[in-house]
């Protein structure tokens, strides 16, 4: 018959059975916490600051003439796993393109914020901003159309956001854009976190 020796817990010492040393220790600990650091984020005044690869609300970029950059190729819609992008194209007689979107809608409720649309876009026309206040009063209001997505661009023009180049894509048609260094991409991939006040956020943008 095999014998298994089980390690029994030792009997408590007198000091441990008196509770007192442990209680005093605990009181010391909570005392330090009372005067210690606060970790709560005071949300409306302070906002969490993410790195620029944070995948928040989308924006549609404008070109240097202030027109929508999108060429309505529907690559984003095709790559979207949630099928939340709807595009209707219309023809234009511009020297560098023949069509632009007439309707460009993203259903922000269906969207899973994977960033595939940003990766797929050959024109670097769609980015994801660091905005995470996504609020509306109805489901219809959560479907963002052209005007709203372009307005978000105007708001976040200066912000460094998630771009196609962050995925390490070669953007053949965009002169001057090169593939990002994969190491750098890896470093950026974890959105981390500092606390800034609203004033600081506004200054930074």
């Amino acid at each position, binding site marked *: 018959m095999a014998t298994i020796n089980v390690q029994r817990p030792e009997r408590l010492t007198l000091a441990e059975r008196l509770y007192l040393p442990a*209680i005093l220790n*605990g*009181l010391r*600990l*909570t*005392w330090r*916490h*009372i*005067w*210690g*650091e*606060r*970790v*709560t984020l*005071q949300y409306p005044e302070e906002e969490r600051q993410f790195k620029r690869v944070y995948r928040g609300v989308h924006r549609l970029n404008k070109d240097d003439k202030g027109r929508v950059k999108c060429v309505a190729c529907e690559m984003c819609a095709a790559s979207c796993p949630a099928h939340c992008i709807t595009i209707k194209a219309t023809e234009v007689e511009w020297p560098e393109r023949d069509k632009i979107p007439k309707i460009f809608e993203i259903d922000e409720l269906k969207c899973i914020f994977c960033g595939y649309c940003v990766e797929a876009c050959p024109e670097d026309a769609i980015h994801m901003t660091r905005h995470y206040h996504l609020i509306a009063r109805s489901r219809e209001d959560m479907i963002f159309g052209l005007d709203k997505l372009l307005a978000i661009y105007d708001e976040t023009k200066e912000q460094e956001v998630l771009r196609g180049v962050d995925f390490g894509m070669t953007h053949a048609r965009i002169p001057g854009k090169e593939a990002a260094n994969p190491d750098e991409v890896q470093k950026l991939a974890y959105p981390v976190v500092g606390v800034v006040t609203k004033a600081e956020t506004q200054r930074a943008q």
Partner: protein
Amino acid sequence: MISQEQLIVSLVLGLVLMLAMTAGAGVFTFFERKIAGWTQGRYGPNRAGPKGYLQFLADGIKFALKEDVIQDYVVKPVYVIAPGLMMIPALVLYAALPIGKPFVWNGNEVHLQIVQANVGVLYLLAVASIAVYGIVFGAWASNSRYPFFGGVRASAQMISYELAMGLSIISVVLLTSEPGINALSISNIVAGQTGYWFGFIPRWNLFANPVAFFVFLVCMFAETNRLPFDLAEAEQELVGGYHTEYSAMKFASFMLSEYVNMITMSMVMVTLFVGGWHFPGIEAIRSQAIQVLLSIGAFGIKVLFFCFLFLWVRWTLPRFRYDQLMHLGWKALLPVALASALGTAIAIALRV
């Protein structure tokens, strides 16, 4: 015969203390939440009013405006008077406690004390034991299982810890007793603590008998149903314990009386063990008025310290298990309190 001056002081004091206690309990709930936050690395309530200081008003208004549900199955008369029964002992207990140095007004000695009972200690013990009726009545009248459990636990707990508490008070009475002095009178107990040992250690009962002080400290937590002894309302096990079925102002008065009770017990603690209004160096002050004011201030600061201790301990310690509670009460505190009373008696017998 009570002098006219004493009568005026008693009446004013009664009114002021009553208001101060109820308002203080409200503010106390605010600081409870603040300190809960601080110990956990949060800010606590900080939105209502400047720095959140009006939070207790917001809470009060909320309770006053809520629907007062009285369930069909409760025993209505008992159910309705239970919160009041809980409130009354909390609001009359401090009547026998002196909150400042006695002074002379128009040639009459005036005590800053609502009632000068010559058996003040007995009064304290008697009123403190009535407090459990509020809990038990509320629990029983709710006619529901969780409150019932809470009530049963509360009554067993109160009985167990009152014994040790009474014995630790006996130590105090023995320390005060001298030929020709009524040691059951609370003003005499405080007066007995005004001397010094070696000229600088105040003659507080805390230093005279630390064991009794400690036993009383533990019993104080048990008597007020505060953590680590809040088995009567253990949220995780009993929903809300004895006040599960209560709502609106009835619930609020249960809550409020818990906090009033805490302040009162802190006052009792300070009076019996920490020298009441006495503070080292009080004799050096010439002016009577300043002496009295500072003595009231010293009493207040000591009470605030013990109120803080209640919160500090609450957010540090987990709750005792029921068998641990009984073990601690009967097998640990009771013998220790007995031994301390006996030791004090022997020491005094040898001295005299």
